[in-house]
């Protein structure tokens, strides 16, 4: 079943054509990777999906519902949650307070029976992302890896149907990347649909079931990780010339 569908997304920033008819679809309970060289339009695509940037053309469907003119908070309430390329936690708060903020939205209210269940969800999500012992710390005292985890925890608090992760591995150590990968895999096994933008191809390819390659705001290839790396268009986009193969160990 197609859960999230981007149809012919177009976006122009003055002279720069950031998205020129990008289409892809995400099936439910799938992990989709979006890769592409710098400036290919990956983050713009995320911003358009989540309503932070208004599309010039095309449309986005979540479970068949058009997200067209909806505001970011309305899109979150429909079940599309995201993280940001740079970590953006609520500095100055305690971790538990930061995780309380998403519980004030309509979607959490509709999905939970009472206040105790909401509190239990905070502990559950924090546990899933190994933040359980950090709940009483202030956000400012967390390290980069923990901030990433907190960002993902925040995005998970709203009972998302689809989770968009924008470069979740950047600036992290192997240990932390493995931890996030394992968490994402677990969440996916529980039925969560995940879309990941990532530059660390080696780690990404192990995680995802399908990859969409974007360049100059268009999809240039799509398929399983194995298919994609053998695609000549992709090697050309990444390496500048045809005929070479990208190695994944």
């Amino acid at each position: 079943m197609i859960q999230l569908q981007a149809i012919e997304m177009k976006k122009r920033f003055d002279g720069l054509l950031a998205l020129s008819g990008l289409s892809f679809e995400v099936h439910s309970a799938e992990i989709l990777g979006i890769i592409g060289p710098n400036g290919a339009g990956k983050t713009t695509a995320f911003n358009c999906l989540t309503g932070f940037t208004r599309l010039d053309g095309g449309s986005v469907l979540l479970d068949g519902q058009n997200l067209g003119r909806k505001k970011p908070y309305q899109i979150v309430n429909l079940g599309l949650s995201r993280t940001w390329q740079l970590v953006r936690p609520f500095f100055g708060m305690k971790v538990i307070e930061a995780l309380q903020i998403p519980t004030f939205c309509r979607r959490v209210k509709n999905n939970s029976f009472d206040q105790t269940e909401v509190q239990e969800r905070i502990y559950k999500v924090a546990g899933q992302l190994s933040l359980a012992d950090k709940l009483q710390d202030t956000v400012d005292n967390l390290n980069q890896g923990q901030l990433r985890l907190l960002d993902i925890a925040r995005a998970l608090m709203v009972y998302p149907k689809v989770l968009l992760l924008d470069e979740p591995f950047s600036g992290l150590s192997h240990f932390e990347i493995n931890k996030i990968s394992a968490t994402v895999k677990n969440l996916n096994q529980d039925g969560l649909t995940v879309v990941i933008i990532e530059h660390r191809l080696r780690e990404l390819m192990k995680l995802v079931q399908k990859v969409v390659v974007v360049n100059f705001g268009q999809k240039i290839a799509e398929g399983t990780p194995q298919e994609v790396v053998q695609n000549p268009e992709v090697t050309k986009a990444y390496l500048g010339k045809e005929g070479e193969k990208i190695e994944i160990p």
Partner: protein
Amino acid sequence: MMKRQVLVLFRNESPAALSILAAGFLFGLMSDNYFYIEVMMLAAIYAIFTMSWDILTGYTHELNFGFALFVGGAGYISGLANLHLGLPPYLTITIGALVTGLVGILIGYLTLRLKGPYFAMVTMAVAAILYKTSYLLHQYTGGEEGISGLGNLTPDPRYDFLIVWGITTIVYLLLRGYAGSRHGHILKAIRADENVAQCCGINTAYHKIETFALSGFLGGIGGGLFAHTQMQIGPTMLSGYISVIIVLLAIIGGMGTIVGPLIGAISLHLLNDYLRVVEGYRIVIYSGILILLVYLAPHGIFNLQILKKSKTLSFLLLGRRRTG
């Protein structure tokens, strides 16, 4: 049952603020020195101004430099309604506050996308427009002189004082409740990162406008009380001077605590009046003290690190924090 609800209301409150509020009531009941009563009344009205300013600026950190718009605007509206329509003060104060609440919604909507200096400039400019308007419409507003001869709340200043102090207490408890509720938490989230707050599924625009309206409404009540207890209102209450004083008192008290602006406004106002014993140097000494306080406690007295680190002090002054 009733008793328990009242207890819940006070349980998390700052003992320092509660005792000052209680002391004020005692003072009002015991004292018959009209001069002290007048001074304390004005102090309480300033406390209403700073607290209602604090709920917006203290929690979102967008400096509202035009609070005179609400204060003076409501003062003039209730004054004119009282003078020309003959409405009783309790009605005119309500009308004035409702109008400034609506104005708050309008300005909140207009400044939704503005941040930092741009936000401050717009609020300042809107207040300046009303200030000039009060001169242009001098046949109604009395221009430089303002309007005087307004009806008083009660014939006895002692009762006036008790009413004003009661309203100050209500405003304090209301704002503390609001700030401690999810509304206050959401405002702090907006302050930290508005886009991420939206990513939490929160309609940040609605919350900012709601707080602007609350700030305007309560500030308007303060303005109306000022007009009717002083029995006059002049363009000073619309001027940049009053906006700056409100900002200063609240910042020195400690933004984002409600307690800080309450205690800061009352004590600094009393200090200012006490300095009248050396009237010639009053402004110099008072301004000097304000500068010194800003230098010693840049984030305000109630936001000092020593205070926040010590559990006892922070409980005594700021009350119990509702987290965890």
